[in-house]
């Protein structure tokens, strides 16, 4: 028998092993560590942690609050997102891509920035209300410091998420189904009620489940709006416990984060089930339905839609920018008082701020670069290896992002509280633990578009390189990387944008010297320095805008749907 049989498998093996090891390290180990802490704190089986958590009254109050804001926030997001998706997809409204860009924008902005912007808009110190002369008296309570406020902002933040999923579903709706109903004499509302909505139910339910997971896991909005009102949800309760008690209460925090993990899991499973229930008879490739002509209603509908944009995007951003120009709390804004001092302070004068900017840039850049590099081989296995177990690998990468950020943060704390065995390297209380959590959490943001990129490439391109004699690594470098790079880079940009003003994970993992932009914003706001917080937020929003423009340059080379704001 020839000795060359099975030669050249080495590289494939090496790649598979490295990928598997990375995924174990980034996804599976932290989850296992968290579960261990619940059932066997300190290494011996015990139910003490569970019973302690279950008997604590604050646990139940926070759980109740989480479910309340989760359900109502989801309901609002579904109503907003679905109506907008129906209007944009099924009718002949004009200016669609500009509208989609604006409507999806809140998704690109960090939740705590949204929260801050709205607070600046409605508070007694609101420069805008003051300009209009309708500000409530100083010292009165901001109406957003309430469960209703949290629900409103969750709805605004995650409406776009529902919109994107429902719109994707609507686009697959074959025109024949709508046309057949219209030919049978059904008016537009009847078609909507009896054909479109029933067929879209799986899409809408799946979107609702995803929005629910996002709502219950959100930290920024309830942190900015709920903590001042002493209205705690599970993520903010975990934060408060940990901020007050340090590592000693990690056991408590672990219990709470598993609790919220379970609530989120219910949502994730519901979403999985619904995506599987999608009616495949309607995912044909026929053309989308002719847009419904609104006629004389078109102008009013358009005006209403843009009013929505003004309300949920422009006004809050305006509030943010205005309050970043105010010299101090409560001072009215006019030509004489407007100042750039807040910007100067956070950019050049305050040492911790400069450090935070550097840290966040370094963290986001490393996380993005790492994810791009790793996503290409992982996606290769997921998209092309055709092995069954790869599906689970993909699922494992999804998990740290699908679960609320606090879950991963607590898991990371547990993993690295003690020095890493055998090496003595200490990650706890350094910036590296944040980097670890970012890598684990955001990897999937680069992986998804990269997998989509692979699906667009004809596999024969790789096979042609194979018969030309190129080994796996050579093919990766010369053929595959150049072809999937745009998709992977777009994923990297998404990671950079998300990580730059990230708060949930870093709020629990930061230490002096490893502050992030998100943490800095949060501490300014908690210390009453809303003007500084606004200045930082305005800067991050501007950076996000620039990055979105940059990403648009790649758009021509990307699978559709990679850039959510592109219609």
């Amino acid at each position, binding site marked *: 028998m*020839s000795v060359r*049989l099975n030669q050249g498998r080495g590289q494939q093996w090496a790649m598979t092993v490295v990928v598997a090891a990375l995924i174990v390290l980034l996804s599976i180990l932290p989850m296992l560590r968290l579960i261990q802490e619940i059932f066997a704190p300190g290494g011996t089986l015990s139910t003490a942690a569970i019973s302690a958590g279950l008997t604590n009254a604050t646990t139940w109050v926070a759980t109740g609050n989480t479910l309340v804001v989760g359900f109502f926030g989801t309901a609002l997001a579904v109503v907003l997102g679905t109506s907008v998706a129906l209007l944009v997809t099924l009718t002949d409204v004009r200016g669609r891509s500009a509208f989609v860009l604006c409507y999806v924008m809140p998704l690109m902005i960090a939740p705590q920035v949204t929260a801050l912007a709205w607070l600046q808009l409605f508070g007694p110190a609101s420069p805008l209300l003051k300009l209009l002369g309708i500000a409530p008296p100083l010292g009165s309570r901001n109406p957003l410091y309430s469960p209703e406020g949290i629900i409103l902002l969750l709805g605004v933040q995650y409406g776009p998420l529902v919109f994107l999923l429902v719109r994707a579903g609507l686009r697959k709706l074959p025109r024949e189904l709508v046309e057949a109903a219209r030919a049978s004499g059904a008016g537009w509302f009847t078609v909507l009620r009896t054909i479109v909505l029933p067929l879209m139910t799986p899409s809408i339910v799946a979107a609702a489940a995803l929005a629910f997971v996002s709502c219950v896991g959100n930290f920024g909005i309830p942190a900015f709006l709920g903590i001042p009102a002493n209205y705690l949800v599970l993520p903010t309760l975990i934060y408060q416990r940990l901020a007050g008690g340090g590592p000693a209460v990690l056991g408590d925090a672990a219990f709470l984060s598993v609790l919220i993990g379970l609530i989120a899991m219910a949502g994730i499973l519901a979403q999985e089930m619904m995506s599987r229930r999608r009616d495949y008879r309607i995912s044909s490739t026929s053309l989308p339905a002719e847009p419904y002509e609104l006629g004389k209603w078109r102008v009013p509908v358009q005006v209403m839609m843009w009013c929505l944009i003004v309300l949920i995007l422009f006004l809050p951003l305006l509030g943010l920018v205005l309050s970043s120009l105010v010299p101090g709390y409560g001072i009215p804004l006019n030509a004489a008082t407007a100042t750039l001092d807040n910007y100067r302070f956070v950019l050049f004068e305050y040492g911790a701020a400069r450090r935070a900017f550097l840290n966040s840039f370094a963290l986001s850049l490393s996380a993005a670069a790492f994810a791009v590099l790793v996503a290409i081989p992982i996606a290769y296995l997921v998209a092309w290896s055709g092995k069954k177990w790869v599906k689970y690998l993909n699922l494992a990468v999804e998990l740290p992002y699908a679960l609320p950020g606090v879950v991963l943060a607590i898991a990371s704390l547990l993993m690295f509280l003690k020095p890493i065995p055998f090496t003595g390297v200490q990650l706890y209380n350094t910036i590296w633990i944040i980097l670890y959590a970012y890598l684990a959490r955001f990897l999937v943001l680069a992986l998804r578009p990269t997998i989509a990129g692979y699906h667009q490439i004809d596999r024969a391109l790789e096979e*042609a390189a194979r*018969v030309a*004699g190129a*080994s796996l690594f050579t093919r990766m470098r*010369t053929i595959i990387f*150049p072809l999937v790079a745009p998709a992977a880079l777009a994923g990297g940009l998404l990671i950079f944008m998300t990580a730059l003003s990230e708060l949930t994970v870093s709020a629990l993992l930061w230490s002096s010297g490893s502050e992030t932009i998100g943490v800095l914003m949060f501490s300014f706001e908690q210390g009453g320095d809303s003007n500084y917080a606004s200045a930082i937020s305005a800067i991050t929003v501007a950076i996000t805008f620039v990055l979105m423009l940059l990403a648009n340059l790649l758009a021509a080379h990307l699978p559709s749907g990679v850039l959510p704001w592109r219609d």
Partner: protein
Amino acid sequence: MAGLTINGVTKTFGDFDAVKDVSIEVKDGEFLAVLGPSGCGKTTLLRLVAGFENVTSGDIRIGNEIVSTAQGCVPPEKRRVGIVFQNYALWPHMTVAENIGYSLKVAKVDAETRKRRVDDAMALVDLKGFGDRRPANLSGGQRQRVALARCLVAAPSLVLFDEPLANLDVHLRASMEDEFAAFHKRTGTTIVYITHDQAEAMALADRIAVMDNGRLAQLAAPRELYREPANEMVASFISEGMVIPAQVLSPAESGHLKVSVLGQEVVVRCRDGEKPRHEAKVCCRAPDISAAAPGEPGIDGTIRRAVHKGGVARIEFAPDADPTVTLHFEQPDPSPFEAGAKARVRIASGWLIPGGASA
């Protein structure tokens, strides 16, 4: 150059046999076409030879080396085969010259030699001066030629084609066919050429392997395939052959024997050693059938359809003796036949399909 031996190869996906017990020996320098209906396993066979899939059982040898067995296989990058893909598979991010020179670069051939060999390859396929273009800026025929040049620059021992002309229009096909034939003549490379176009296979190949449902139905030279199909499938697949029930009346004598077909006695060609039997099948081709002159022995029946095709008419005829059979033949204009009319035709000759497969 090297021959190719496929020995009892089976490939199973799940519990479905895409290729079943196929044995083919391709001689050094031979041009073999693999022909068969869609889904019969042609592409799978080619991917087995290239090494993209591994055999479930059996083995494959290129030259003197075993490259695939159920225990393991030499990966494609080590086989020195060339492939021309149906959709060309040109790398869009490389120029034409980079595409062609890729395998040399991978093999670390020095830049100067590389350039010379790429130039030679481009000259060979008539693409001089296109080196700096991107594949996106080429016509279909030009892309096909780049694909050809890319595969021949490495001087592979074996070249595989998977329906290389399926995406081209009729005129281009004809000229590319000539080009492939010239290429084979010039280089003497062993070629395995997959197609579902019979005319293409007949025109190009030394021998043709007809596949059916994963099995090798017949492996023979084009003329033999046409004149002496080994079984009913090949008989009906090649050139729309008609398979007609018959009775053998006499034993074979110097390659011929007497049969009774639809009530007419005909002398047909056959294999040696055939003996009288019932339920035999005869394969006839359109030229074997013509209108019977008055008084001649023949078959009575009804004209089912008459389709005029410029200069000739294609007549479909249902014999009274067995209306489930349809005979078709061509009648030069002006054709006396109309659909629905009674008529009488005669079979001049045919081929007795060997027993076993049909009995």
